[in-house]
């Protein structure tokens, strides 16, 4: 196990006393230092990557950001029902990781999935229409925000039970090995899911049977309203891999290139040796757990401090300083992306709802009519 790019736990994280309603004030000097150091490291990682790749990484992150902002807007306007869990702040994780895999590789994730869906190649139209509950949605309107699927691009959902996706991903990876292809499976879950039994059962089997599954823990440090300190006895998640003799890494999730590099190592390990990896990727969500969450468990100050390490701002700063993109190009890209998202809303608005008969379809693949005689 190696510690890549990590900051050692800050004073804030080391605090452990009793039940705390709000975490201590974040060390702003440290964050500013981290930000500058991240940009420096990103510049080093830039060498060897062509401009097109870098621009595409940035474009995808910005698309997710604008899409999620729009989702929040239309949710408040009543167009999206139920739960809506936004990915704002975590874009570098989905984009950096998924940029390293192929169309036929698998992604399995949680209900906070719009980012991974876009990164894997699902259209903004199909996702927005699904959020609106329209028949043109990727799940024909029967899944919603938490259950997006696309078989053609290996996007295996979209799962609502915390940690429920982890055994599923293990099974998809198991199947790849069984079927003799070199596909890998990426499984995304939050740090709170690490406490579920399903996590431990899955990692044990994956290492025991050597399946090519990449377990990506998006440690955004809060499971809904409960901070990591209040939920986990041993908070070093990457270290938990040693219980399974599994390779692991700790990654700075605000640096899309750091995520990409760690993911590349894991993908290679999966394809060449059919071995699993656990990546603990430290990140932060800028919005609440979901649209229903007023977020009383974090201070405004903490959020604003982490926003200084916004992965999109960091990366655009790096790209500008290295001359990959100009301000004008960045603005033009943003303009195009905003138009794409507006188009998705229009598509969703104008699409029809599922017909009433769809209530009864796809309950069974082989429906048996008991009155068949």
């Amino acid at each position, binding site marked *: 196990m190696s510690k890549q790019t990590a900051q050692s736990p800050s004073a804030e994280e080391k605090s452990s006393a009793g039940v705390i309603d709000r975490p201590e004030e974040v060390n702003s000097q440290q964050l500013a230092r981290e930000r500058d150091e991240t940009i420096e490291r990103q510049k080093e990682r830039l060498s060897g990557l062509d401009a097109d790749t870098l621009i595409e990484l940035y474009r995808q992150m910005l698309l997710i950001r604008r899409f999620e902002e729009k989702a929040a807007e239309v949710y408040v306007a009543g167009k999206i029902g139920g739960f809506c869990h936004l990915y704002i702040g975590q874009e570098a994780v989905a984009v950096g990781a998924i940029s390293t895999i192929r169309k036929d590789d698998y992604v399995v994730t949680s209900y906070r999935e719009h980012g991974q869906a876009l990164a894997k190649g699902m259209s903004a139209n199909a996702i927005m229409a699904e959020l609106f509950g329209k028949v043109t949605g990727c799940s024909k309107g029967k899944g919603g925000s938490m259950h997006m699927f696309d078989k053609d691009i290996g996007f295996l*959902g979209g799962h609502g039970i915390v940690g429920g996706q982890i055994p599923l991903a293990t099974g998809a990876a198991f199947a790849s090995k*069984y079927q003799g292809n070199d596909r890998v499976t990426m499984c995304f879950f939050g740090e709170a899911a690490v406490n579920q039994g399903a996590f431990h059962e899955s990692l044990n089997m994956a290492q025991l049977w050597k399946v090519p599954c990449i377990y990506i823990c998006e440690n955004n440090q809060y499971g809904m309203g409960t901070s990591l300190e209040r939920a986990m006895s041993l908070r070093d998640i990457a270290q938990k891999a040693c219980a399974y003799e599994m390779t692991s890494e700790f990654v700075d999730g605000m640096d899309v290139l750091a995520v990409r590099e760690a993911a590349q190592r894991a993908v290679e390990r999966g394809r060449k040796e059919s071995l699993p990896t656990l990546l603990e990727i430290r990140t932060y969500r800028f919005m609440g757990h979901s649209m229903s969450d007023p977020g009383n468990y974090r201070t405004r100050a903490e959020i604003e401090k982490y926003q200084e390490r916004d992965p999109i701002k960091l990366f655009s700063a790096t790209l500008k300083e290295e001359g990959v993109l100009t301000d004008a190009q960045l603005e033009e890209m943003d303009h195009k992306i905003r138009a794409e998202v507006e188009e998705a809303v229009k598509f969703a608005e104008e699409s029809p709802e599922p017909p009433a008969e769809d209530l009864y379809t796809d309950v069974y693949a082989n429906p048996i009519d008991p009155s068949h005689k």
Partner: protein
Amino acid sequence: MSTLTIREALNQALREELARDESVFLMGEEVGAYQGAYKVTKGLLEEFGGKRVIDTPITELGFAGLGVGAAMVGLRPIVEFMTFNFSILATDQIINSAAKMLYMSGGQFKIPIVFRGPGGSAFQVSSQHSQALESWYAHFPGIKVVMPSTPADAKGLLKSAIRDDDPVVFIEQERMYGNKGEVPDDPDFTIPLGVADVKREGKDVTIVARSLMVPVALKAAEALEQQGVSCEVIDPRTIRPLDIDTIVESVKKTNRVVVAEESHSTCGVNAEICTQIMERAFDYLDAPVKRISGVDVPMPYAKNLENLVVPDVNRVIAAVREVSYMD
């Protein structure tokens, strides 16, 4: 035709389906090297190897979910629960993943998985090892539930379950693994899901029985024949979807019904069958439907107490006499 035990019939079904389709594989605790806790999987590891027959750690939630994930991308897993009591640990993956996947993905991901193993009572294994869970699983759209009672049914239904593209919960009965019966030799012999079987024809009273209660009902029917009552015994075989038409056709003929199960009465499968009979055949009933279930207590260890729990031939006879107004 061959005379086989239910255990042997299941073993044959597994062997034939493993040989027929490369994407079928079997996993569970002790299914391989140990030859199966109840010997249902005997010899399969030697014949098919460790890729197709997999011994798992004791990790029900994990391996059930692994099976569902593998099914999503083209494999056809047979997941054995050593007993269905242990399936409770896997319930999240059976109910939230397997049952829902096709629907919530808008028809994209079918789950051709079989969860099989013994359910219901055994002999003095006490409360945690004696539970009948078919009404739990039958409650959920997206799952099929099958319970065979004879060797031929076991073989034919298991083959169909493995070939079916939906999640099938296939509940065997430990007490019945040694029961013998005639089984067709045809390697393509299958029995369709969703079709009930008239195990014995009669004209006075319909007895609907499943799994362990089928031989009990048949014994009771023989005794009742001597008492002047002709019983028709119907085995649904598939609990969900239930072949209510066959049951109703019988009720129209006999006008009297007893439904027997070893599971608890409260919210059980018989409650469902009684309701459907009432909904569809009320006008044909000459007496209220009589429901016999296992006593509504956790299963005790002591032999004499356990014997009081599971319905026996005498309870069935008494019930038939009751709906016939004979006493």
